[in-house]
């Protein structure tokens, strides 16, 4: 290896390291904060790594507020909206890639446009709709909009994967005895698994992180999702950083676990499909 190659390689490594540190720093900082006591956090000079790590903040996070309920609510809302999104997006993506639809490109463009809508512009009409339907303080008031908001991107992601699958495979499945829908779920979906997982992760993370709608539509404390529930730890005059950090770590961990499990497929999903192999 010559000097120039080594230099380039080290520069690339350095750039990568900066990106990783930049991305991980807030999470690591929150993790360390969650393991400190209030007094250690406020003392000067700052201690970066907890001198005397404690789990008391995690205990208090669950006892001061119903954190377990917040988690359950988030799991229900994000889980349900993810399942519905993946199911509907699969059907929509299949229709867009396989059926001879008139104005197909226009439909795709509209999908893209919908995904660009700022959430703030939807909140007032959505609130009125939810109130009329009597869905306020009901999981459906979040599941439905989350599904609609995630659908465009998930549909486009899946469509790009379905496009790469030979239509002859479905034809073979239909001759073998499948209905068109069976061919989609038994043959196309397993082959587009990276795309399906990518779409599922995108939908789940969108729903898990969302704050504005969750704050507006679920006002009862027992119905709060994690993203809103965590803000409830803040008092009028106090800001219990270690406690909030502990709750935040609890909110981050499920998503990290989910992504870690499906990492290989999601990375494949984000990179494949863009170019024909």
């Amino acid at each position: 290896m010559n000097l120039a190659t080594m230099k380039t390689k080290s520069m690339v490594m350095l750039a990568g390291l900066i990106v990783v540190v930049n991305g991980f720093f807030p999470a690591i900082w929150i993790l360390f904060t969650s393991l400190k006591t209030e007094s250690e956090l406020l003392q000067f000079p700052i201690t970066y790594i907890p001198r005397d790590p404690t789990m008391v903040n995690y205990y208090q996070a669950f006892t001061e507020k119903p954190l377990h309920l917040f988690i359950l609510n988030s799991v229900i809302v994000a889980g349900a909206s993810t399942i519905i999104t993946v199911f509907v997006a699969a059907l929509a993506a299949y229709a867009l890639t396989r059926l001879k639809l008139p104005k197909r490109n226009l439909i795709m463009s509209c999908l893209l446009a919908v995904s660009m809508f700022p959430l703030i512009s939807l909140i007032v009409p959505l609130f009125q709709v939810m109130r009329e339907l009597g869905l306020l303080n009901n999981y459906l008031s979040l599941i439905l909009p989350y599904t609609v908001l995630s659908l465009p991107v998930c549909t486009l992601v899946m469509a790009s994967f379905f496009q790469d699958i030979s239509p002859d495979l479905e034809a073979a499945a239909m001759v073998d005895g499948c209905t068109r829908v069976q061919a989609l779920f038994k043959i196309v979906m397993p082959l587009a698994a990276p795309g399906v997982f990518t779409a599922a992760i995108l939908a789940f993370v969108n729903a898990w992180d969302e704050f504005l709608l969750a704050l507006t539509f679920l006002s009862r404390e027992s119905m709060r999702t994690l993203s809103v529930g965590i803000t409830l730890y803040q008092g009028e005059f106090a800001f219990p950083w270690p406690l909030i950090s502990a709750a935040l770590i609890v909110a981050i961990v499920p998503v990290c676990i989910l992504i870690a499990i499906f990492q290989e497929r999601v990375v494949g999903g984000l990179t494949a499909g863009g170019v024909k192999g």
Partner: protein
Amino acid sequence: MAQVNLARVTKSFGETKVIHGIDLDIKSGEFVVFVGPSGCGKSTLLRMIAGLETTTSGDIEIGSERVNDLPPRSRDIAMVFQDYALYPHKSVYENMAFGLRLRKTSEEEIKRRVGDAAAILQIEHLLERKPRQLSGGQRQRVAMGRAIVRDPKAFLFDEPLSNLDAQLRNEMRTEIKKLHARLGKTIIYVTHDQVEAMTLADRIAVLSAGKVMQYASPDEIYNRPAAKFVAGFTGSPAMNFAPAKVSADGASVMVAGTAIKLGYPRTSAGGREATFGIRPEDISVGAEHANEISARVVVVEPLGAETLVTIAIGAEKPVEMVTRLSADIKLAMGDTVNVSFNSAKTHLFDVTTDMAITS
């Protein structure tokens, strides 16, 4: 086993009509080949029989049941695709068992049928592999195995050998012929390769621009082509064509200023312009046949067992024709030779309709 009947079948994509009222009767157990150039509608017609394309008008019957409105799964047919269409995430065994599972066949029966089909195709050792671990020829066998296990009324093959190299293609062609002899099932086979069509078929349907130009046995297609297109499409090298003037009594033609006697008179074309046709093997060097004329050798292409020789006849406006000669006959470019035409094998086609003139 079942017969397949097509009556006045048409297909349009929007304003574009791609199949123009096709009538075909395929007997039970018959091996029929649809052959034609790219875009002639042969694959579309096959997919219509399979139910993968809708039929714009006309009737398709499989085993005397009208199937126009039935989905592919209810037509009891099996299909082998050009790109094999094996399910990449399933093993060979699961690929072959898939159709049977959908039909709720018992595990025991599935195992027996897959085993039998694998034995016929000599793929027993591949059953646990995934399609990506197979060669092109092995994939083709698995695709055929998947069709065989279903024991359907008819098999449809859509250019199944076109992705294989020349040697493998010849081997698989023989395999398919053996398979038909063994199973005795109705087979409809699509190809653009006239050699496949000639070697495999009981009957060939030659298609052009969505129409059947001729539907007959390979022998009839080759020796009595109904149209210039059919004559030109079959045989390699293709039939020689030349503009001709038919004599008043219809017994001979003038080609490049040379009179050539026809096998039998075409009185209907007497005195008219026509297209003369003769296959390369029906032109001989020397006086083997009547019609001996002088020709100049233009190109010599030795093929080992035989030699293709392009000759030019006529002096003023010479017409070039290809002959297929024994390799023993040594000729060189520029030689002048006497050639003769086999009158019995001469063909005449109408200049406007391109249909054969037979009377």
